[in-house]
């Protein structure tokens, strides 16, 4: 047995690939690492979620804000008995650094990677930093595929390769949508096996997108991204500032009509309803829940949606 195989521990949980290929509805959550070394709250969230969701994404310096690293957190999730999906962005690392990280991730049992270009530097908290963008999401997917075939991006042979379940992002409500659709096709061509969407709220729109996506390719798995709504202010902010995210009028009103102390519960109720609809109407292959700091309410959302992954 090679040294590398020894490093990969027995996997306690099925991978998201195994779940999707078994035809089960995938339920994933998200962990946003802290700014600093106090991991207590994040560990609490991981422990709370690890048996409630199939896997947890770990954001990679989300919104260009420097944080505890996604790779370190992915390993931590494994150590705690959860299943991580490693997010890799191209903003902070060039091809050498990304390849090296992927080698490391593979030897530590990370099986799923979500490939993103990454937000731009000026939207974050290190506004004077140099953005790398040596490559972007499509090229990253290709780079991983090359590594799986035993070569790095310079064409050099790897002594021991990698194998990942490769994911990417699509924004169903992007304006204009056509370039986004073409990029979606390119991501599939470059090796994307699963997609998580940008936050979606209008389920009729999403259904139309899914019809189109299925026509383009009915093999890739698509999981609907949902962001927890928490207040009228947050809805207003997202509608005005987050590209490709639109909260429709009826949901905004539902939140506005709720008394202050009921807002979080309203958000939970809305998301639970949407998850139920995704499952009942078989709209897509899974849901990716982004609670953004409110990870502790994810079990409640799933309970209200009547979702228990142990019984699926």
């Amino acid at each position, binding site marked *: 047995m090679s040294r590398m195989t020894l490093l990969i521990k027995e996997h306690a949980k099925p991978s998201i690939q195994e779940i999707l290929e078994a035809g089960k509805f995938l339920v994933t959550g998200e962990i946003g690492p802290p700014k600093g070394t106090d991991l207590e709250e994040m560990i609490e969230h991981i422990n709370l979620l690890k048996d409630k969701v199939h896997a947890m994404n770990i954001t990679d310096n989300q919104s260009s804000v420097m944080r505890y690293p996604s790779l370190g957190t992915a390993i931590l999730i494994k150590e705690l008995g959860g299943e991580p999906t490693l997010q890799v962005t191209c903003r902070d690392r060039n091809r050498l650094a990304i390849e090296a990280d992927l080698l490391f991730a593979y030897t530590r049992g990370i099986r799923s990677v979500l490939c993103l270009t990454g937000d731009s530097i000026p939207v974050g908290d290190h506004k004077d930093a140099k953005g790398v963008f040596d490559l972007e999401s499509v090229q990253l997917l290709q780079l991983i595929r090359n590594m799986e075939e035993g070569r790095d991006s310079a064409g050099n042979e790897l002594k021991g390769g990698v194998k990942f379940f490769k994911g990417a992002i699509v924004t169903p409500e992007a304006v204009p949508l056509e370039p986004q659709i073409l990029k979606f096709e*390119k991501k599939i061509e470059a090796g994307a096996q699963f997609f998580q969407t940008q936050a979606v709220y209008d389920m009729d729109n999403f259904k139309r997108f899914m019809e189109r996506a299925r026509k383009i390719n009915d093999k890739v798995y698509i999981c609907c991204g949902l962001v927890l709504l928490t207040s009228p202010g947050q809805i207003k902010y997202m509608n005005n500032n987050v590209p*490709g995210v639109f909260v429709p009028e009826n949901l905004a009103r539902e939140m506005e009509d709720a008394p202050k102390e009921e807002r979080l519960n309203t958000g939970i109720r809305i998301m639970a309803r949407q998850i139920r609809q995704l499952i009942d109407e078989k709209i897509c292959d899974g849901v990716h829940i982004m609670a953004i700091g409110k990870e502790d309410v994810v079990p409640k959302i799933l309970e209200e949606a009547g979702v228990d992954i142990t019984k699926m």
Partner: protein
Amino acid sequence: MIITTSKPFEEVLKELEGEQKVFIVGCGSCAATCETGGEPQVAEMKAKLEAEGKTVTGTVVYEEVCHELNTKRKFRENKEAVEAAEGFLVMCCGAGVQSVREATDKPVHPACNTMFLGNIVRHGHFVEKCSLCGDCVLEDFGAICPVTRCHKGILNGPCGGTDEGKCETDKEKDCGWTLIYNQLEKMGKLDRFRRIYGLKNWQANMKPGRVIFERKGGGE
């Protein structure tokens, strides 16, 4: 052309601290168009420095300060004022400043910030459309450069930060990839958009850039 902006006058004054006698170099090419280093700006700078008690030993404004041989010639032509100066204030791009550096060992100070290689949209309005990458990709993208006109310089389509044709970094700026999409669609060449563009060679112009053309026989 090379787009420059003027450094704040306080910053210029700080650069010149300890130097009483100053010689000013302006550029009649790019900096004149940008109104950062042409004749009027050099005259204005001279007056402001004199108001601060400095002695301006001389000024010179000529085309292409970046031309090193030409700069040396101009310095010879202004020998007296140049020799009297304790330092040089150069009102043009960084290339011009360093051209002056080749002509003297005395302190040389930049009066401008060098911004980008720019297109002139109209008087006083400049935009960056080429970032001098050394490996031109314009042929593939409808003659709109994704390396420059997309903030991230990515090569396979818009990122998730694009919104109604604008960039996430600045709602006043066009999303380069939306421009490229629209152009290719207009030309009936969306197949180019669909093509996956592999990793770019970012070392095509390995810094510092250097090009030496072989002299052709029979010429000058």
